């Protein structure tokens, strides 16, 4: 118990108000930062990568002061880091701690891999349905082609 408590303090206690994104796959930390536009964010942000994780071996973590993510942002996190946990903190207390959920539909922020798709030629926001949550395969609502996670390009 003692070591668990210490560990939790190390990770979260520094934050008075804000959100911790925990259990991000290490290699995706920078992708999450970029996708959420945290690099142009004025609030205090701490992030770590290749930290020890009991569950995953290595993990990444991002702490954002005074930021509470909206549903659309959480969906984005779930697509790049489906293992992530969101920890919401107010007055140094953990208010909510829950794993992100991969949504059924992915709107606007991923490019369709098909160069012949209408979304790559006209001003049409992309839209996909998630057809395989484990392998993260998305089917384009327009051209019906599949874009997989290794081909994700963020708009």
């Amino acid at each position, binding site marked *: 118990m003692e070591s668990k408590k210490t560990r939790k303090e190390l990770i979260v206690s520094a934050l008075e108000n804000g959100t911790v994104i925990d259990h991000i796959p290490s290699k995706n930390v920078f992708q999450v930062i970029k996708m959420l536009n945290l690099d142009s964010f004025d609030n205090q942000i701490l992030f770590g990568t290749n930290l020890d994780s009991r569950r995953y071996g290595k993990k990444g973590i991002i702490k954002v002061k005074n930021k509470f993510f909206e549903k659309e942002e959480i969906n984005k996190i779930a697509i790049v880091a489906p293992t992530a946990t969101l920890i919401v903190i107010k007055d140094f207390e953990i208010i909510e701690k829950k794993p992100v959920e991969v949504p059924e539909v992915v709107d606007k922020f991923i490019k369709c891999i098909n160069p*012949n798709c209408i979304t790559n030629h006209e001003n049409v926001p992309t839209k996909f349905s998630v057809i395989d949550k484990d392998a993260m395969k998305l089917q384009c609502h327009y*051209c*019906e082609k599949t874009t997989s996670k290794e081909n994700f390009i963020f708009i």
Partner: protein
Amino acid sequence: MKNRSLVSINDYSKEEYLKILDIAEEFEKNPKQKILENFVIATLFFEPSTRTRLSFESAVNQLGGKVIGFTDAASSSVKKGESLRDTIKTVANYSDLIVMRHPLEGSARFASEVSSVPIINAGDGANQHPTQCLLDLYSIRKTQGKLDNLHIAFVGDLKYGRTVHSNVIALTNFNCTFHFVSPGELKLPSAVKRHIKERNLEYYQYTDLNEVIPFVDILYMTRIQRERFSDPVEYEKVKNAYILNGNMLGNCKPNLKVLHPLPRVNEINENVDDMKEAYYFQQARNGVYVRQALMASILGIK
């Protein structure tokens, strides 16, 4: 189906497309009814497809409707840089229904979302061409008396042929057994096979056309294009292996019919044309009835 666009064969349920086939039978008996006299149908062909356009226009004309439109993008405002969104929104003001063919995949789905009138997809790039699929189902049902429990062979370019893909997907509703005959490079994509597996149906793959002829009910031929091969030598090796010749049909089942979406180049020898197995020209004629049925149904007349 009133006021509902048809973009992809998956947009309609099995019952709905069987309904279209039933209405098409009525039109086959009586294709000249003046039921579209008060309707204007737009045929927007952003890329040329003479056969499909003429089939739709014949269907409308025989029912007394009026057709407006263009036959390729060069003769339309697209050339001036107009977006698809604007073209569709404008033409929707001038017509009751839009039939469109476009080289980009997903264009018809997008059009159906911005249009105030229903859209019929007459081909969006390599993606969907649902009226071809409906007329193929009509032709299969007409020649075999049913759609269930048939053995159907698809021959030629099974990798890129969108017609083959939508036909296979539609036929998985009818407990068919599939026989796929193609060169190794042009096999059916696994995304399409997934639909067959989901229904626990059987499929078999071949490289020799002669193997399937004795036991199938339908032989659906398609064209193999040279440009589909990464290695031109591979094309030279296989180009003659998927040509159907009259003498190959000697031991076929009595009910076998040969289908082809047309245009044919050389994959069916002309010596097949007068045999009782040849059905591809009637198949094209069926397209008119099926399109009449679809339009009448979407416009709320049937």
